[in-house]
């Protein structure tokens, strides 16, 4: 699997060309010179101030106003050869939706998003546009600052969500049944694509809410639950059936589902198994995986304990180990639950932190401390087995490793101890092996991922396709969605061929 920008396929290209040539687009292009467009400053994202937002779980970013959105949309040059689309794994017709915003046709812009992206309100909030579409926006090359595509995506999707009544359609009674395993962004996208192609889609989800990481991992201050729920409702409106509390591999195996008439499968079970560091003291009370900590707070809503029944520790001094989005979500959560200090412990330097720059900035504004070039060695507890402190080592950067990043090397004798009563380990996740116990025939890669064929994402069992984190290891929402879209095309081709033969 590769992450590089895929040129969009021919049908996408035709669709985009038709829109580009419409009369209103030509007129709009002519209404303002590129020079004038370039001169318009990029609209900042309005956000709640760090002091108040650091105490609750309401959303940090507020979204653009219609005026700001139209002004931002005017910056887009509506290029003949737009870079942005090739940077989008689901090939959103970016210039079209932006120009619809410029014209004030916000609902139409939302519909444009939905033709290739089943979860635009989610993507507009959590996608790393700075490394996807915005990194290849022609305006970035011309003026240094790309169009705020992500902010505009969020704007249009939110408008559509508040205005639109969910479409209601049912698949034909005779439609071919396809099963989707896992309701993360990969599963939801596959479900949406397949439903639009006319299949009868059932999503099987182990947990009691649909969304995968979007439901249990990403906190509400970045992605409010109601945004996710609305997108899921929309899929239900397309006729997708959601079977929650259904653990494929335990409640039923793929073979049993096949016997029930499912003709093809999309596996999007994600990378849910939390990694630990295997250092002494990791099983002390007070040491959590990021998944557990975030699941308690988000999915189980433990922040409202005792009004809800699931508890979560109210730490005084919290340390989160890791430097990615997961670590930042955890530390900002701990901060909101009252931790002082709430620290990030990261073994490399700031440049290597994989988290989005925006998240790091937000975290620091909220009072999060970041300890760089530091790695934990062990945890120490009291006589009751409760976490009391953490011993760390200072690191320095040595020669680059296989990932191209400079390898952190411990400085001998630099141990120091930090007093903490909460440690959250956010050092990556592996594929959840639950499904494989009953499907040993599925060929798997080195890290326990499913091996798939590059173009169709077909796995080694007939009619089984896979995408998202289960194939890539930990990746991103939009890469998972891109996979799902290609896999849906693969499934369609597979079912046609099966039908013909």
């Amino acid at each position: 699997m590769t992450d590089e920008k895929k040129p969009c396929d021919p049908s996408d290209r035709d669709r985009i060309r038709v829109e580009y040539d419409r009369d209103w687009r030509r007129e709009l292009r002519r209404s303002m010179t590129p020079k004038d467009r370039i001169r318009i400053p990029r609209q900042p994202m309005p956000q709640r101030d760090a002091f108040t937002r650091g105490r609750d779980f309401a959303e940090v970013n507020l979204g653009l106003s219609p005026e700001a959105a139209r002004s931002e949309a005017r910056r887009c040059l509506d290029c003949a050869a737009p870079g942005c689309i090739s940077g989008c794994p689901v090939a959103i017709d970016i210039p079209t939706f932006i120009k619809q915003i410029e014209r004030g046709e916000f609902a139409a812009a939302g519909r444009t998003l939905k033709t290739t992206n089943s979860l635009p309100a989610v993507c507009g909030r959590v996608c790393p546009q700075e490394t996807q579409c915005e990194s290849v926006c022609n305006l970035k090359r011309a003026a240094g600052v790309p169009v705020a595509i992500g902010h505009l995506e969020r704007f249009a999707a939110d408008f559509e969500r508040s205005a639109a009544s969910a479409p209601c359609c049912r698949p034909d009674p005779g439609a071919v049944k396809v099963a989707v395993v896992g309701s993360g962004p990969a599963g939801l996208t596959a479900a949406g694509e397949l439903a639009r192609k006319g299949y009868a889609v059932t999503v099987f989800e182990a947990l009691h809410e649909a969304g995968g990481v979007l439901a249990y991992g990403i906190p509400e201050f970045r992605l409010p639950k109601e945004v996710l729920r609305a997108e899921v409702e929309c899929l239900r409106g397309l006729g997708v059936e959601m079977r929650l509390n259904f653990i494929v591999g335990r409640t039923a195996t793929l073979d049993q589902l096949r016997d029930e008439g499912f003709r093809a499968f999309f596996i999007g079970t994600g990378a849910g198994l939390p990694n630990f560091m295997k250092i002494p003291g990791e099983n002390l009370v007070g040491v959590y995986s990021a998944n557990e900590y975030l699941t308690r707070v988000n999915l189980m809503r433990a922040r409202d304990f005792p009004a809800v029944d699931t508890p979560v520790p109210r730490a005084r001094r919290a340390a989160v180990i890791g430097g990615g989005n997961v670590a930042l979500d955890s530390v900002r959560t701990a901060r909101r639950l009252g931790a002082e200090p709430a620290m990030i412990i990261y073994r490399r330097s700031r440049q290597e932190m994989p988290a989005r720059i925006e998240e790091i900035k937000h975290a620091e504004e909220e009072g999060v401390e970041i300890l760089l070039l530091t790695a934990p060695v062990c945890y120490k507890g009291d006589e009751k087995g409760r976490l009391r402190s953490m011993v760390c080592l200072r690191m320095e950067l040595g020669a680059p490793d296989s990932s191209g990043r400079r390898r952190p090397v411990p400085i001998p004798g630099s141990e120091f101890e930090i007093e903490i009563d909460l440690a959250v380990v956010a050092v990556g996740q592996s594929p959840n092996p639950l499904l494989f116990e009953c499907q040993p025939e599925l060929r798997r890669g080195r890290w326990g991922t499913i091996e798939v064929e590059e173009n169709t994402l077909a796995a080694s069992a007939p009619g089984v396709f896979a995408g998202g984190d289960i194939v890539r290891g930990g990746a991103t929402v939009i890469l998972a969605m891109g996979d799902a879209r290609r896999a849906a095309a693969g499934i369609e081709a597979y079912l046609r061929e099966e039908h013909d033969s």
Partner: protein
Amino acid sequence: MYEILERRRLVPNLHLLRVRAPETARACRPGQFIMVMIGPDGERVPLSIADWDAVEGSVTAVFLIVGTSTQKLARLRAGDRLHVCAGPLGKPSEIAGFGTVLLVAGCYGIAALYPAARALRQAGNRLVLLADVKAGHLLYWEDRYRNLCDRIVVASRDPGAPFQEFASHAVSNVAAKEASLGRVLVSGCAYLLAAVSEATRPLGLRTIVSLNPIMVDGTGMCGACRCSIGGNTRFACVDGPDFDGHQVDWPELFRRRAAYLDDEVRSLCRFEKESLP
């Protein structure tokens, strides 16, 4: 939503719960558990599967009232609905011909071991049940076991009872009378699991415990249920819940089970204040 078909007190503090969950009922195997959630504000509570009926589409569990969630469960009745009933979860117990199998069960474990007893009997094993109860009137499902077991020993603290001691003390006594004892299965409160494991260790008897650490999802996604087995960290919900009792780090399990004691008391006090007159 999962309809409750029956919720009945078996003996003081122990209740039976039978829920309509047809897909789960079709897939149950001995030693597995379900996750239930009472309402959207509830927690996910793991309960061992005590029986199932694939035809009726029902799953049965027996639970002990200990805290808020089990208090709430005990107030539900037939016709009420559970927000979640997911499963079966966990690896099934190993069922084979072991010769004689000693089942040591206390509290909810008497019910939890029943499916394994049934399957072990079918596999041709001789079965001995050693039930641990505080008092004789707390024993339940004796009738069910009578059909399966060759011998039933009740360790109760009733004055004058034949085994007036804890099951863990009675174990070696009972084991001594069994010639081809191949395995011991233990289910119930964590102290019983630990004490029986310690008692069988010097006898070299293979002892499988159904471990019950605190869980959240039950699908291997969070690591709340991690425990040290022979020095390695394992997730009880996907690698277990059955483990070799001689390999379990018991002090760690007890500490991790006590992680939320203050919160649990707070939650229970609040619940009682709101619900008791």
